[in-house]
């Protein structure tokens, strides 16, 4: 599948932020913005939201219940052992394992979710529009196929107005 893109390269954060905000205000679609470090205004303007924290909460809830159920089952139902006459369901001392294993479960499942949602895994093939985006340049990528030529020139104008040092088109 061939696709072509309009790529705007910025030197600093402030120009990038203004350009992204203006493009988004005009309801024009940006495919993706690449930055060497997280720029919160850009993340905000792009409008993507992360539900990772909500997921993590439910992983934790599920994990805690699962661990408690497992401890109860092993210690009370499956093979109860009398430790000095103490109750089989020694709940207070189960809490420690529950906390630690809940943390363990939240970590592993959040990592898995992150890997899936952010599309990061070992050996993944990735598309790089500009090699300098992980170093010192801020890059806006707009899809040419999905945008009208008229709107494309507006975007180009905005990029130029906010000090893009390089605007180029790329066919791939």
């Amino acid at each position: 599948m061939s696709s072509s893109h309009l790529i705007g390269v910025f030197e600093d954060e402030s120009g990038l932020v203004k350009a992204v905000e203006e493009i988004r205000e005009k309801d024009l679609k940006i495919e993706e913005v690449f930055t060497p470090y997280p720029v919160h205004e850009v993340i905000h303007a792009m409008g993507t939201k992360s539900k990772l924290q909500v997921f993590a909460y439910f992983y934790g809830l599920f994990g805690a219940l699962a661990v408690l159920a497992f401890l109860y089952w092993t210690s009370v139902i499956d093979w109860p052992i009398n430790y000095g006459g103490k109750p089989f369901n020694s709940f207070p001392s189960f809490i420690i394992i529950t906390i630690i294993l809940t943390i363990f479960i939240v970590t592993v499942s959040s990592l898995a979710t992150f890997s899936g949602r952010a599309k990061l895994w070992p050996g993944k093939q990735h598309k790089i529009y500009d090699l300098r985006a992980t170093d010192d340049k801020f890059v806006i990528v707009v899809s040419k196929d999905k945008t009208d030529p008229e709107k494309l020139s507006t975007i180009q104008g905005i990029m130029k107005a906010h000090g893009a040092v390089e605007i180029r088109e790329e066919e791939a």
Partner: protein
Amino acid sequence: MYNREVRGPLIIGDKSFKQISTDILAPTETKPGKWWFAMMTLATLASIWGVYSIYITVSKGIGTWGVNNTVGWGWAIINFVWWIGIGHAGTAFSIFLLILRQKWRTSINRAAEAMTVFAVGCAAIFPALHMGRIWLAFFIFPYPNTRGPLWVNFNSPLFWDFIAITAYLLISFSFWYLGMLPDFATIRDRATSKVRKALYGFFSMGWVGSSRQWLRFESLAFILGGIAAVLVVSVHSIVSTDFAVSVEPGWHTTLFPPYFVVGAIFSGFAMVMTLMIIIRKLYKLGDYVTDGHLDAIARILTFISLIMGTAYLTEIFMAWYSGSEYEMFTFFKNRITGEYALQFWGMIICNALIPQLFWFKKVRSSLLIMLIISLFINLGMWFERFNIVITSLSKDYLPSAWASYTPTWVEVGTYVGTIGIFLAGVLMFFRYIPMIAVSEVKTVKDIGTRKYD
């Protein structure tokens, strides 16, 4: 709100982003100096001795150690607690400061987390060896087995320990690795050789720095940070229950969990200071690890040292106040005076007194003195664990069961070996991984000039 006029910049000099990457990535992109190879040789020799000692322990048994029926926990447990304590600061440092949004962490967190991972790895060796028959170590996993199924004792602090350390190792490693993804991508995209590109490309897992990735990256960092903060406090509390849940005089106290957690953070911060001074000096990264950074660590150490001193006094007070003759004996006859007085006073001097020198501005601005004090703290923390483990065990309730303890060369060798392994790990870290989080340092370049800092 970061007031730049009061607190100064976090990076010295008006550097471009390119300059920051170049400065910090230089050690990974150039050949290391002669000192690196010399240290690596030393570390390898130490590790070889360690591996040989471990071989002797495993093939001949725990009888090759100096432990006996009375003092059943020797250097192995001392070193285990010592290493895990050092391993605490990386996460404590990185995560508490992340949650409190203290931006000065950015220059130090990577090295602190690296130290954590290696130290916890070293720590895990000791309880594994102490099991005696290490080839049956898998018995500790609660899996459905053909022995009943007989489950492990979920009320045992030793089992809690196993779970806590496993979880801690995994989480501190994940947090460390997560932070490295963007930096690996930077190395990958700067690389000129094919091998480098492929290798760092593999480890960067396809990081491109898109806004969607950054959004999720930060979400995950806060999730891991939030839960790992709980873990930092709980892991060393659990290690302390190994002692506190028993009825040994000197161990059976509610003071132990906070005392252990604070002690762990203390030794770990000292190790962070040692490492940062070395990194700053040998790699000339003084613009990133500024006097201000080291000054901040020194202030924290002073404060924690005061807490440690208070804890020591509290222990002694409670021994007297409890009215228990065994507690009295343990503290006054066995620790303060007696066979192990050297370790007791070593602990007091190194942990509670020497760090108080940091009150002086002159001390806080001399790299050499700071390095020496940080090493003293770790020595003192080793004494503290010796003090706890050996004095209580050697003379408890029954005088007929009293015994002394001296380590054999096998125990010493295992300890030296773990230091070697730790050193080798740190040296590899210096060589192949950016020592300072490049992407995070870029965010604090102009700190205090923007409205949301």
